[in-house]
């Protein structure tokens, strides 16, 4: 079963975290070794980090189907900072992986305990339909 683990970050104070050098380094090292672990466990399908919201554009089609870009990102409390897609045997395993990411170290090395949204990735048809 594949799950997408979405790391949502609070919009307030978004952007490059202004943490002490040592804490930033610890955070980055944690994220790199977390990714390495997922790769080595044979569970990683994909992972991407996304740009900060100031690089985001909202796009809609106009009446001719042409893109209208809106530079102003709407005020929302959270934004998607990045995601992992994992292929695991049970949902509990996906939750465990998410909990690990959630506890990434923040300022002072304390766990951030940030919310990670876990959602199943839709699959193909079920084995039998009656």
């Amino acid at each position, binding site marked *: 079963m594949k799950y997408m683990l979405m790391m949502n970050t609070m919009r307030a104070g978004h952007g490059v975290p202004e943490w002490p050098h040592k804490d930033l380094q610890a955070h980055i090292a944690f994220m790199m070794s977390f990714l390495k672990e997922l790769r080595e466990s*044979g569970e990683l399908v994909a992972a991407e980090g996304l740009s900060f919201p100031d690089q985001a554009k909202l796009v809609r089609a106009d009446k001719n189907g042409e893109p209208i870009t809106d530079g102003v990102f709407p005020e929302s409390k959270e934004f998607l900072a990045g995601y992992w897609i994992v292929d695991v045997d049970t949902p509990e395993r996906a939750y465990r992986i998410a909990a690990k990411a959630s506890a990434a170290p923040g300022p002072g090395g304390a766990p951030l305990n940030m919310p990670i949204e876990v959602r199943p990735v839709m699959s*193909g*048809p079920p084995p039998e*339909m009656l």
Partner: protein
Amino acid sequence: MPESPDPSTEHLLRELAPQVLGAVIRRFHDFASAEDAVQEALIAAITQWPQQGVPDNPRGWLIQVASRRMTDQLRSDIARRARETAVMLQSELVVPPVDLDPDMNHDDTLILFFMCCHPALTSSSAIALTLRAVGGLTTGEIAHAFMVPEATMAQRISRAKQGIKASGVPFSLPSQREQVQRLRSVLHVLYLIFNEGYTSSSGPDLQRLELSQEAIRLTRSIHKLLPESSEVAGLLALMLLTDARRLARTGAGGVLIPLDKQDRTLWDQAEISEGIALLTAALSKGSIGIYQLQAAIAAVHDDAARPEDTDWPQILALYELLKSASDNPMVVLNHAIAAAMVHGPSKGLELLTALDSDPWLTEHHRLDAVRAHLLEMAGDHPAAITHYRRAASRTTSLPERNYLTTQAARLSETLSDHTNHSSDQ
């Protein structure tokens, strides 16, 4: 990427893979490295044979190439160790000869099946390892079939091999007594591979490895090795009788078509006859297991030229037996459908009420989907719509979600049509 070989070469390689692996393990006594070496030999064959032609003794060729790979590996390990200790003793480079083993006509396929489907492994590890070590597929092909990166699949296989090493499984057949239990794991893994063939593919894709075909091939090979096992025959029959309906199961764009709406002329009659013959022979042997029962149910469906010809009392009787042999909640749900077809929807709905206390099922979309279907049969369309929508919100299968939301939409329209007509009058 090597060019893909013609299907006959591919078939030959997959047939030979477990035999070659068995021979290399017998010579070098190292499953994990032998498995890697055989994989490299297979890839070498895929690249070389289409240009140079298939060798006279393809099996011997593969054993030779894999053994040479093993020898090279051993040499470099010894050299590394020698460098580390700064003692270069050429005389220590003792490697087994690569001449042909007198014992090479041994077929170790069965041992490999037991090993790769060892209960100590998780199902995903067992599936991946079985496809590679017994099925002779490349890591790339397996990764593609499961839609994960090749590096991820390689890690999964290597961890599965570590798991086997750690559990200390000997390279020999389990005792007669143990075999019964272990065969159950093997059949379960093959059954999962077969079902994965349905869930991971979403339309005709010639490039994609057909996992369900691969499962049928592997089950055929174990049936050949254990012709007396009626459950092996039952599983093979179940796969064939289910696969026979494959073309009719989906319409344009991968839309799901339920059994009663399928174009039955698309069903594969050759597969149906083979499945029924296998099942008939297996049933005459006495002990009846869960795969034979499921195959028997599939056979009754396949036997009906039109949905209304389906022998539902027979299916209901088979589900009664299956229910006493298996604690799978899906069986209970299908039993309720069969009961509804025989005794009417209210009987089916009554059976479902008993399941409302099952915490696992109440969270599962299938309970809502079945209830919606039976409510529709009973003519309670508003309630059916509610349950179709609940089921749609809970399924993790995209084609099934489309199917369920479409059912709800269709019923809603008939409801509003009905309202419009009444207000016209």
